[in-house]
C-alpha cells in the first residue's frame, strides 16, 4: 500500500516537474511563435530600389535578397507564357502588414 502511494507521489512529482519545465520553455521567446502573426517583408519596396546603387557584397543587401528570394522565385514560377502573372501583381501592391498570399 505504502509502495503504491510512494509511486503515485513520485509520478505526480515527475509530471509536475515536466509541466513546469515545458511551461518555462513555452514562455521563452520562440521565433516560430512570432512568425505566425508577423508581417511579411515588403519586397515591392526592394524592387523599387536602384539596383545599380546596391552593393551586392553588402550584408544588408544580401540579407534583403535572402528575405525576398522566395517572393522573387514565386514571381518567376507564377509567370504565365505571356509574361504576366496575378502572383506578381499581388506582391507588387501588397502592404507589408498583409500576410503573404504565396505561403505554401
Amino acid at each position, binding site marked *: 500500500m505504502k509502495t503504491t502511494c510512494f509511486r503515485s507521489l513520485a509520478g505526480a512529482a515527475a509530471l509536475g516537474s515536466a509541466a513546469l519545465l515545458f511551461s518555462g520553455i513555452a*514562455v*521563452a*521567446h520562440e*521565433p516560430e511563435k*512570432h*512568425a505566425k502573426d*508577423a*508581417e*511579411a*517583408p*515588403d*519586397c515591392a*519596396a*526592394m524592387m523599387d*530600389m536602384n539596383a545599380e546603387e546596391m552593393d551586392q557584397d553588402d*550584408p*544588408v543587401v*544580401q*540579407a*534583403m535578397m*535572402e*528575405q*525576398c*528570394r*522566395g*517572393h522573387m*522565385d*514565386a514571381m518567376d514560377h507564377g509567370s504565365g507564357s505571356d509574361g504576366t502573372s496575378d502572383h506578381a501583381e499581388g506582391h507588387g501592391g501588397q502592404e*507589408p502588414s498583409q*500576410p*503573404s498570399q*504565396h*505561403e*505554401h
Partner: protein
Amino acid sequence: MPIRKTLSCLRCLAATAAVVLLAGAAYVYLGLYPIGADVPHNAATYWLLETVRERAVARAARDISVPGDLEASARLLSGGADYNDMCAGCHLRPGENQSDFSLGLYPAPPDLTEAHDTHGDPASRDRRRFWIIKHGIKASGMPAWGPGHDDERIWSMVAFLDRLPDLTPQQYQIITARSTGSQH
C-alpha cells in the same frame, strides 16, 4: 597636547559622520526622494549611477570574445527580427523619433537608430552591447535577455545593432520581418 587635539578632531569627525548617516537614513525612511520616473535625478545621483553602470559593464565585459562573423547576412536576419520584437518599442526603428516607452522610461532608453555610441573601439562596443543585452541593467527598464536567449541569438542582435543606423525604414522593414514568404 597633540594627542588631545587629535582625539578631539576624531570625535568631531565621528559626530559629523553620525549626523550625515542619520540625515541620510531620515531622508530615505521618510520617503522624501522623488522616485517618479517623470522627475529626473539630480546631477550628483545621475553621475553616480551612470559611473557605477559604465564602470561595472566595462569590467564585466572586458574578457568577452567577439565572434568573427558578425557581418554575416544571416546574423542581420536573425538579430533584426529579434530586435523588432524585443527592442524597437524602446530603442526605436529608423524613421521614428519617439515612442511611449522612449518618452516615459527614465533613464530614457538610447535611440539605437542613431550612430552616437562612442563606447571605445568597435570590439569594445560589441562586447558592451552583448553584455547589456544578456544581463540587462538593474532599475533601468533594460531586461536581461540571457535567460530566454542563447549567446548566438544575442550576438546576432549585436550584429544587427552595428548596421541599424545605416538602414532606411524600407530596408529595416524587409530585414526584420519574420517572413514566411521565403519558405516556398
